[in-house]
């Protein structure tokens, strides 16, 4: 047990503070190899993580790095540095604290490697980069403890897998390294503990007092939510009232686009000119920094934000959290609510704002789940091999290695503990030669085996390219947006390349809450001018869309079965009643399918309630079969509860389409060809190092230096169908984006009971799907026919068709 230095105890006493029980427990277990602390935000969690470090460093004897603190956010690392500096100075403890992120200047980074501080605050990516240097052993000499903050968030992503592989490397360098994880409330603490601890070390789980039950309700508005859409513009007056009635309000949105629209509308309604900011991941760093700083100063009354504020900074003054749009996932909702009122003994206050009437139902179901403490979670499966490939390359950057040693090291990370040696070898082979059936790169292998059996980089200059491409965060291709000035205008943020391509000069769009006019593209930067008025376009961001969890979906289905809905507002109850009159309501043990004509094309709506990803897969599977049947499907759109498909031909006999066995058989053939797989491939191939996002000669002009990853994918499928990258893509897609598991669950649930209804027009429940973003075009015979028609029209209209060439 660690004894607290008198300076530390005096500091607590001088402030009339007592050490929280969980902080004491962390001190008691300071020597354990791994400890997981689960505590609500505001419970002195960070201090609990650092107390043992302060105790051990208090005597000033320790040389070099002692504690590494890892957070998923750069901003958090910087914030903790400030928050830690104050008590450490007040306790007059002799220690150096520094942070290191992508934003740290090169000179300071260099100094940190040669002469590290006692406490280094960093991110998974910066840590991985540190381990890639040949002097890593010297940098980390003496390291005692690592504190992983917000580990519940990291454990859900490849960033966490990357972190754990980096920790495995550190544990090799510093065998006595002790690990501490700090987590918000989660459904399965044991899984996080296994993720944190070195395999097979044990890891004790400490639960801090969760604090009072949150006060959470649906926002009451005079106006009813619309039938469809995600903007929740109807709620603006009511939200404005709430902002006025509270000190500081965080207004969470599920997507960046929705946050932009909402902020725009809120601003138009802001008659009292209250200070309101916007914060999301596509905004320029300067802009985000400015909003965060204003927040810390307490200058803002409200912040419209996305998941970018799910974690991190302690905003002391936040006394209300508003969630716009259905929360999709009860666990995340609970964590978001925890962002309000960071003092330990007041209940967090939160309001849910459904964006449309279906979401009223979803919010009601989520409220009930929160009250019952029914958190949802899905197991993640074994460690992803694309991350493993990247870490083999990172290891090679640090110096030659024996395959046996690296295998032993990597399988000490919990997620990779069951990795078979053959799979590791395949990853190594991939890194060395590309791992192709055709041996083409004998001369140009990336890794070579030396006479002593160790592996090393063929060309030491490759380290630069590997480091440039390190990381697992997948950005879609984005373009920077700047104000047009004679010399480099102010950066406003980023938009996706696909959206930028739809703009023509003069178009206006929203970014960072301002309306700007597209002027042109220069040096791969979108130049804009400020411009008010005029209906702006909405930039699309294909950021992560979470699927409604299985638990929440099933609660919604159950709710729909009620004879009447006294627990729902009238407008929503009436709507459900209307659906029941003109069609049916979906049932847990049956599959409802509606068929109706709409806007020239026949439509099908399939209510699977399997979550967005699985409904999307269902769309792909069904359209594939419709294409084969000559029905010329044109596209589909999926939401969490249904898939809608439209095409050129009316479906006369839909029964064979929904033959479940055939769907399952079709998965294999179909799986290879669809856009979702190609997107997964792009991600895996980028992480594994096959595709480089950054090259020393960065893209400078409009000329596409490389061809699309789709071509690589198609080529591999044709000539090397068993290639490792395709295996990884498949594994990935099946559990993440494809989520076939939930289709199978749905099939089991309905037991072959399919109700197909032919209806004269679109139904109340189907209508919202028409306004969904993310329609997936089917590039088949139907599209070719339309393209042909449009090309002919364009030639005719322009007069070129009659022009002799």
């Amino acid at each position, binding site marked *: 047990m660690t004894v607290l230095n008198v300076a530390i105890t005096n500091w607590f006493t001088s402030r009339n503070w007592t050490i929280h029980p969980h902080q004491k427990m962390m001190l008691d277990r300071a020597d354990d190899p791994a400890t997981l602390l689960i505590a609500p935000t505001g419970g002195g969690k960070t201090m609990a993580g650092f107390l043992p470090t302060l105790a051990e460093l208090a005597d000033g004897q320790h040389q070099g790095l002692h504690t590494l603190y890892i957070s998923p956010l750069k901003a958090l690392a910087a914030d903790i540095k400030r928050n830690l500096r104050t008590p450490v100075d007040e306790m007059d403890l002799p220690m150096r604290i520094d942070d290191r992120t992508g934003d740290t200047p090169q000179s300071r980074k260099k100094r940190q490697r040669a002469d590290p501080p006692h406490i280094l605050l960093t991110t998974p990516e910066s840590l991985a980069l540190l381990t890639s240097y040949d002097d890593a052993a010297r940098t980390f000499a003496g390291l005692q403890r690592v504190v992983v903050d917000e580990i519940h968030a990291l454990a859900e992503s490849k960033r966490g897998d990357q972190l754990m592989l980096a920790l495995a490397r550190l544990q090799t360098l510093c065998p006595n390294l002790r690990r501490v994880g700090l987590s918000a409330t989660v459904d399965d603490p044991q899984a996080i503990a296994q993720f944190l601890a070195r395999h097979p070390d044990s890891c004790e789980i400490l639960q801090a007092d969760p604090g009072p039950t949150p006060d959470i309700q649906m926002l009451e508005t005079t106006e009813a939510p619309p039938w469809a859409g995600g903007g929740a513009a109807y709620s603006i007056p009511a939200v404005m009232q709430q902002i006025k009635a509270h000190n500081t309000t965080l207004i969470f949105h599920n997507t960046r686009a929705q946050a932009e629209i909402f902020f725009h509308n809120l601003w138009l309604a802001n008659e009292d000119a209250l200070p309101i900011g916007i914060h999301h991941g596509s905004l320029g760093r300067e802009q985000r920094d400015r909003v965060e700083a204003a927040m810390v100063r307490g200058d803002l009354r409200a912040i419209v934000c996305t998941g970018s504020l799910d974690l991190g900074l302690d905003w002391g003054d936040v006394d209300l959290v508003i969630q716009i749009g259905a929360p999709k996932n009860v666990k995340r909702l609970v964590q978001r609510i925890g962002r309000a009122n960071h003092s330990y003994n007041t209940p967090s206050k939160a309001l849910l704002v459904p964006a449309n009437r279906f979401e009223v139902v979803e919010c009601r179901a989520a409220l009930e789940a929160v009250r019952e403490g029914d958190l949802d979670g899905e197991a993640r499966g074994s460690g992803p091999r694309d991350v493993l490939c990247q870490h083999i390359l990172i290891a090679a950057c640090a110096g030659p290695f024996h395959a046996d040693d690296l295998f032993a090291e990597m399988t000490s990370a919990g997620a990779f503990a069951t990795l078979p040696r053959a799979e590791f070898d395949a990853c190594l082979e991939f890194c060395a030669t590309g791992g192709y059936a055709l041996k*083409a790169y004998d001369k140009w292998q*990336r890794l070579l085996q030396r006479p002593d059996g160790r592996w090393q980089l063929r060309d030491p200059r490759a380290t630069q*390219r590997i480091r440039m491409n390190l990381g697992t965060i997948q950005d879609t291709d984005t373009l920077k947006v700047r104000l047009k000035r004679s010399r480099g205008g102010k950066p406003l943020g980023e938009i996706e390349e696909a959206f930028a391509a739809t703009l023509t000069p003069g178009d206006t769009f929203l970014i960072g809450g301002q309306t700007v006019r597209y002027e042109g593209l220069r040096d791969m930067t979108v130049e804009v001018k400020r411009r008010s008025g005029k209906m702006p376009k909405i930039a699309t961001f294909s950021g992560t869309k979470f699927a409604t969890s299985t638990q929440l979906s099933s609660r919604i289905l159950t709710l729909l079965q009620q004879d009447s809905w006294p627990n729902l507002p009238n407008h929503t109850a009436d709507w459900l009643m209307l659906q029941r009159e003109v069609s049916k309501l979906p049932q847990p043990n049956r599959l409802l399918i509606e068929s109706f004509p709409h806007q020239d094309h026949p439509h099908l709506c399939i209510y699977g309630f399997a979550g967005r990803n699985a409904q999307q897969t269902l769309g792909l599977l069904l359209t594939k079969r419709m294409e084969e049947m000559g029905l010329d499907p044109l596209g589909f759109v999926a939401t969490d509860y249904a898939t809608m498909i439209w095409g050129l031909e009316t479906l006369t006999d839909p029964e064979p389409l929904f033959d479940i066995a055939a769907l399952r058989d079709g998965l294999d053939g179909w799986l290879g060809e669809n856009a979702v797989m190609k997107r997964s491939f792009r991600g895996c191939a980028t992480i594994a190092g096959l595709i480089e996002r950054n090259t020393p000669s960065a893209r400078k002009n409009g000329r596409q230096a490389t061809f699309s990853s789709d071509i690589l994918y198609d*080529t591999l499928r044709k000539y090397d169908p068993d290639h490792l990258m395709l295996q990884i893509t498949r594994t990935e897609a099946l559990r993440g984006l494809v989520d076939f598991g939930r289709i199978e669950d749905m099939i089991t649930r309905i037991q072959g009971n399919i109700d197909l209804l032919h209806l004269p027009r679109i139904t109340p429940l189907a209508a919202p799907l028409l306004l969904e973003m993310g329609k997936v075009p089917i590039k088949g015979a139907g599209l070719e026919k*339309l*393209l042909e028609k*449009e*090309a002919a029209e*364009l030639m005719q209209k322009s007069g070129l068709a009659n022009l002799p060439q």
Partner: protein
Amino acid sequence: MTGYDFPLSGAQLTALGSGALYWPDQNLLCVSDLHLGKSERHARRGGTTLPPYETQETLARLEADLNQTQANTVICLGDSFDDDSAARALPEAEKDKIADLASRCRWIWITGNHDPAPANLPGELHDSFPLAPLTFRHIAEPDTSGEVSGHYHPKAKLRGATRPAFLLDQHRLILPAYGTYTGGLRSSDPALSTLMAPKAIAILTGPRPLAIPMPR
């Protein structure tokens, strides 16, 4: 044969959906920018080890066009190889495949900026190749007529679909890149929009070639 037929300086030509050009009167097939050996060059220059199948794939598509048209002359409009040493480093099987194709008909290699001198391959080597009323060369020249060239890898967009495209005006035709691992340049890029006359059209490749007013 699905193709888009058009005249250029009096010659009747057909743009094939594959990105190849066919000239029925001469029974001539023309392709541009094959970039064979690209993955080898990529790895050699410190890049990653891309799937090394693009040469096979490009040759397979070329053979399919050759079989379909039964052309007795083939013109490769330059940048046929990603560079000269990529040409030399091709695996034997792929060199044999090229030799086999080239022995079936008259084969003309135009030199490009990537491959000034692809040696030791069957066929004739030319800087440019006139065949009245047309002239075949790698990079378009100003103030010409009846010119067929490549080099720019043009692409164009219709209804959100971007595809490699032929660009055509009264004086010249620019072919899309035929090679499997080739990127593209939008027709709206100044390099192309200033080169092509105002009434130029773009012929999108794909299952059926589609002509549209060239996007600028």
